[in-house]
């Protein structure tokens, strides 16, 4: 069942010399987890903003209303945790979920490893903990569509891994259709069902790659490692946004 269709003909920022997003089209099945990988500045964040409805200024259509994807069912995890520093953790969560009772709240916090932090202000928490709150905020509303904008960058590997595990755990309950934007191919391979590689701007899809590996995965799993190497061997300039394909090696 198609849950999200994105069909962007053109996105140009006002005053920019060229387009940020070129013709770019893809569709996601309900509950699918897709990662969009491309070089920095390729317009990945612009793409997420368009899907989220934060930016109406583009040519094309985004169909996110199929299958009950309606208003208020969008979860968004930003590059920074973006918690309101003057609200406690509890009030930050109640901002998106006003009816949250204390019992549910405490249980939810305990589940993401934040027991006892309800009355704390975000700035007193570590960066990793703030990101947990941000993830929890996105899942509390039981989103049908979840957008992740490089939420795990600038974290050390163990912290990132623990957040991968948390994301997988939370997803199992809610199963939102998920779009993760990242420039980290290992992260994409560890998390997603499918990886879309995009070019430098104007962003276009240059490769649509299914990740048929058993879950849960870690970024340094042998299988992830192999797929990473195979991809790099076949498309050495893929991560730079170029689709120069080498001939298929015999052993692959």
């Amino acid at each position, binding site marked *: 069942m198609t849950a999200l269709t994105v069909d962007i003909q053109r996105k140009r920022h006002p005053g920019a010399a060229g387009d940020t997003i070129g013709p770019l089209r893809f569709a996601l099945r309900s509950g699918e987890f897709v990662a969009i990988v491309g070089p920095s500045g390729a317009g990945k964040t612009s793409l997420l903003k368009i899907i*989220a409805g*934060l930016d109406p200024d583009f040519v094309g259509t985004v169909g996110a209303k199929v299958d009950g994807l309606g*208003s*208020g069912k*969008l979860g*968004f995890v*930003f590059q*920074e945790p*973006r918690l*309101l*520093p*003057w*609200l406690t953790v509890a*009030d930050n969560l109640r*901002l*998106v979920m*006003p009816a949250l009772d204390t019992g549910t709240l405490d249980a939810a916090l305990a589940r993401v490893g934040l027991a006892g932090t309800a009355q704390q*202000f975000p*700035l*007193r928490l570590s960066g990793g903990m703030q990101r947990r709150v941000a993830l929890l*905020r996105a899942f509390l*509303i039981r989103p049908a569509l979840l957008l992740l904008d490089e939420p795990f960058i600038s974290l050390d590997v163990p912290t990132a891994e623990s957040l991968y595990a948390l994301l997988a755990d939370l997803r199992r309950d809610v199963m939102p259709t998920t779009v993760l934007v990242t420039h980290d191919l290992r992260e994409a391979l560890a998390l997603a069902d499918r990886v879309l590689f995009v070019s430098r701007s104007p962003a276009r899809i240059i490769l649509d790659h299914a990740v048929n590996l058993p879950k849960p995965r870690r970024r340094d799993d042998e299988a992830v490692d192999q797929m990473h190497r195979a991809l790099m061997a076949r498309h050495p300039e893929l991560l730079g946004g170029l689709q120069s394909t080498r001939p298929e090696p015999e052993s692959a």
Partner: protein
Amino acid sequence: MTAVRTLPAAVVRGAAFVVLLALWQALAAMVNDPLLPSPLAVLLSLQHHLMQGELLHHLAKTLMRVAAAFVIAMLIGVAVGVWMGRSKLVNNLLDSLLVLMLNLPALVAAILCFIWIGLNETAAVLAVALNKVPTVIINIREGARALDTQLLQVGEVYRVPRLTVLRRIVLPQLYPYIMASARSGLALIWKIVLVIELLGRSDGIGFQLGTFFQFFDLTSILAYTAAFAGVVFVIEAVLLRPLDRRLNGWRA
């Protein structure tokens, strides 16, 4: 010097105040002229006016006017300031008027109000408020322009109701600007209120000062001034400073 630096702030402030008073007392004793009353004489006069005179009545009148003008100026100033800060159109429409109002002498505003509205309470309070509104607007507009777009996006993505966005996301960012306006506003308003009472009211501290002026009764003038200064200190200590602490509790 090191010993002085490690003293508590309250002790240093208190000591500075006492030294100032002592200097004043010494100077008054040297000059020995009724036109430079000593602090002790002022204190005795203050006691006399408190016990026998009508100081409390006039002080109450003036404080009511200060409070009314303050509330009106803050409400209008914050509303228009946010509006001008967030909308280019509104800003362009109102900017020249704002510059004009900002530079309108207090005396002109007072005379116009008294002539157009009459020699009554409404005119007095309005004249005071008119002087304060533009400076509040300028402050708050600056704050509204500096609002964090990233946090506003959180409200947008999670479909937070407008009123909640205002209360939880916008206003907390404006608090420092509102507090600064409140502080400078109180100072400005009480300066202007006296001029307006002198001009067109038959009670209040300004009116009393005018009467004392005619008799060159400097001791009473300073006693009334001291009474009002005391009130300002109390407002700062029991209202503004605790409020400031409460609003800033989240800072790590």
